[in-house]
């Protein structure tokens, strides 16, 4: 267990302030088995003792499933390792004496609240536009009444694994939310339960994505590369098909837009 010294270049931005800046810090006695967020904890303990303002960042489960944490580490959303969230990044992936830049997930629709904390409620507003099956409690048939082929269930599960962290948006040059939106649209399109609202759902969710100011997809593939849950870009192609089917179906269009 060799202790490391790590230099951090961290984005600091006061609440409500328009302009932020990088501030340099050094953290001593970092152990390789520590997580990246535990290194930030260590820094914050030190800053608190010195009477300085700790660095604000979001985290909760610290095991890669809640989607709360999200930092751009060394220029990559969730850091240099594939298939991991920020809280899963371990310090053994960095060198003693290394300088690491740390930034928030940057995107127009994700305003910075303070330091490394951003507001991702735009995702919630997209989900509210049809990202569900309208099935009231009490109306469900037996769970085995409708058999679902294992392959379809597995594909739905692959898409449903999205944790809503927003790394796809932060990595995209267009700040597109296409991977996030397509994951939900795909999940429900693979399942018979999602069928009745398919077209309407695609039109409404994509419409809200546009209104929130997210860009469109131009097939860079950066989203898929940083996604901690390996959500496939194929979902975006599927989303487009769902959208066109919805737009061509007059019934769905009327339900979604009223015209």
């Amino acid at each position: 267990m060799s202790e490391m010294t790590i230099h951090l270049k961290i984005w600091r931005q006061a609440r409500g302030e328009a302009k932020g800046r990088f501030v340099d810090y050094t953290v001593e006695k970092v152990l390789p088995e520590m997580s990246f967020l535990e290194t930030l904890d260590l820094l914050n303990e030190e800053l608190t003792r010195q009477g300085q303002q700790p660095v604000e960042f979001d985290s909760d489960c610290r095991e890669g499933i809640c989607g709360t944490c999200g930092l751009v580490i060394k220029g990559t959303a969730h850091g240099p390792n594939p298939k991991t969230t920020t809280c899963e990044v371990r310090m053994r992936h960095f060198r003693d004496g290394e300088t690491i830049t740390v930034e928030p997930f940057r995107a127009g629709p994700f305003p910075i609240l303070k330091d490394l904390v951003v507001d991702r409620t735009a995702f919630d507003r997209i989900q509210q536009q049809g990202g569900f099956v309208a099935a009231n409690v009490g109306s469900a048939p037996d769970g085995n009444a409708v058999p679902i082929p294992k392959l379809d269930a597995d594909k739905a599960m692959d898409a449903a694994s999205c944790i809503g962290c927003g790394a796809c948006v932060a990595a995209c040059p267009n700040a597109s939310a296409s991977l996030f939106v397509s994951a939900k649209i795909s999940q429900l399109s693979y399942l018979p339960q999602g069928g009745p609202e398919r077209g309407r759902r695609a039109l409404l969710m994509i419409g809200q994505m546009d209104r929130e100011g997210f860009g469109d997809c131009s097939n860079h593939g950066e989203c898929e590369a940083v996604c901690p849950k390996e959500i496939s870009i194929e979902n975006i192609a599927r989303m487009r098909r769902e959208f066109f089917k919805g737009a061509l179906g007059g019934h769905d269009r009327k339900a979604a837009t009223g015209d």
Partner: protein
Amino acid sequence: MSKILDAKIPSGPLADKWDRHEMECPLVAPANRRKFTIIMVGTGLAGGGAAATLGELGYNVLNFCVQDTSRRAHSVAAQGGINASKNYQNDGDSVERLFYDTVKGGDYRSREANVYRLSQLSMGIIDQCVAMGVPFAREYGGTLANRSFGGVQVSRTFYARGQTGQQLLLGVYSALSRQIAAGTVKMFPRHEMLDLVVVDGKARGIVCRDLVTGEMKRYAADAVVLATGGYSPVFYLSTNAVNCSATAIWRAYKRGALFANPCYTQIHPTAIPQLGDYQSKLTLMSESLRNDGRMWVPKAPGDKRRPADIPEGERDYFLERRYPAFGNLVPRDIAARASKVECDAGKGVGNTGFAVYLDFADAIKRLGRDVVADRYGNLFTMYEEIIADDPYHTPMMIYPAPHYTMGGLWVDYNLESTIPGLFVAGEANFSDHGANRLGASALMQGCADGYFVVPRVVAGYLARGGLGKVTTEHDAFGAVEDEVRRRYDALLAVKGSRTVRDFHWDLGRVMWDKVGMDRDKAGLEAAIARIRELREAYWHDVKVPGDAADFNKQLEMAGRVADFLELGELMAMDALAREESCGGHFRAEHHTPEGEARRDDENFMHVAAWEHKGDGQAPARHVEPLVYENIEVKTRSYK
């Protein structure tokens, strides 16, 4: 004065109680529902499920959570599965058997009527979740798949890979999203409930802190529901998310709600062992791993050879040896304590000696690597990222960790606390798991409370009437808000020398050492004295940076740790008063010659519910006797 509590269990045969009770609950007509406002704190399976369902029914719901969005409530982290007595596997399951297993698993310390209702409602949960698009695992024929979990001999656990909690929670989140769009539910993310407002003896509102601006806010309602989860982070290191706290239920306790069985905590047997002092949490490895993994330690104490170098004959598969009938699938409390016994005898492995092996070599030989990867791949990946070792080749190292709290606010059959109009659901209440929770039962309880029980019982409460109009201008709101403000200003004003984490860490050490898996009188008394010292020191020496009118994570934590420093003492007092061993509560003075827990049904077959009598005053211990009319009370055995 000790009171005998009335759980208001409906009369009649066990199997008919809930149906009859539903019929007897008065209703609110559809057009009148929007006139009622319900505050729901928490957006997990219980809180979010209840908020969405009440919204569907037409009530006006205000839903609060500390997370940045409701989709991150800690239900999201549950891995293994959800139980339901569907008997899809034709292996003899039934409502009766799930009821029996759950009461036995809880070591005969849970309430029969509640557990039976839970067992009945379990089937509807699966149906509802499938209808909402939850992608449960399926067989090639298209039917739902099941697996087995600890403490039972049937396969009744439904799952979505190792992410069942996530998928169920996303179902809740989507139902909530729909109601938010419909205007029935209003969501308040990044809002922390800091106190309860009681007007004329009834729960009528809450005071919250907006975690972005720091602003204190008041909300009034006709009923308040707390579904804020458990309090495992009182141990500092636990498998819970770092923002899990007792604050909402603790504040309600201090306003008059009784706190039941605070000492009943679940130490989960299979977490990644602690590696160092820097750690912020422990990572759970799902109980489902014990379906195929075999737990062992070297037979000889102090054997530091690599696991591969220890021949078969020199290994002790201690669960298989001690519990041949259930083997590696004994309940959590039994497996956790058995691991501790081996480590305390010097047979623990790894650098610290506080770990045992969970070995998949036989499973890989029997099933092939692909099948094992399909079942547990995501868990193996998590393990490898943290420990930098490959569990396909080297056995996992695991050790018990605080995971779930069976204790919580006392509620009657209607999930109503001792404060009228204050309901408590999910892990935040105490009602269904007795002294030990079986695997895959937490998700079941969360969904049952959320989708089915809360909507019915809260409607019954509202329909009975007698609720005058109360607004946030009422004096009671002002008084509570002033108290909250003073409390947080006081924390900032200490300007001492030690951080919030320093104190939380110290508290966690005391709780783990003396109020953990093995408790005795001297240790508990020492713990109480030490916690009082820590609490005293906290209010004189804590250092909280920044100010109240800002985004301030350290201040949030400071408030939560202040509450843990009070709750920890009550847990130790409860453990001290309960002179028996049952489930997760193991008193060193009370065990059988084989080292198993020894209950004292004559003196302790009851719920202990504590009443706050004022700061610095001893709380009062009340009891609710537990009556078993439908189940034969036995010594729990998994041998």
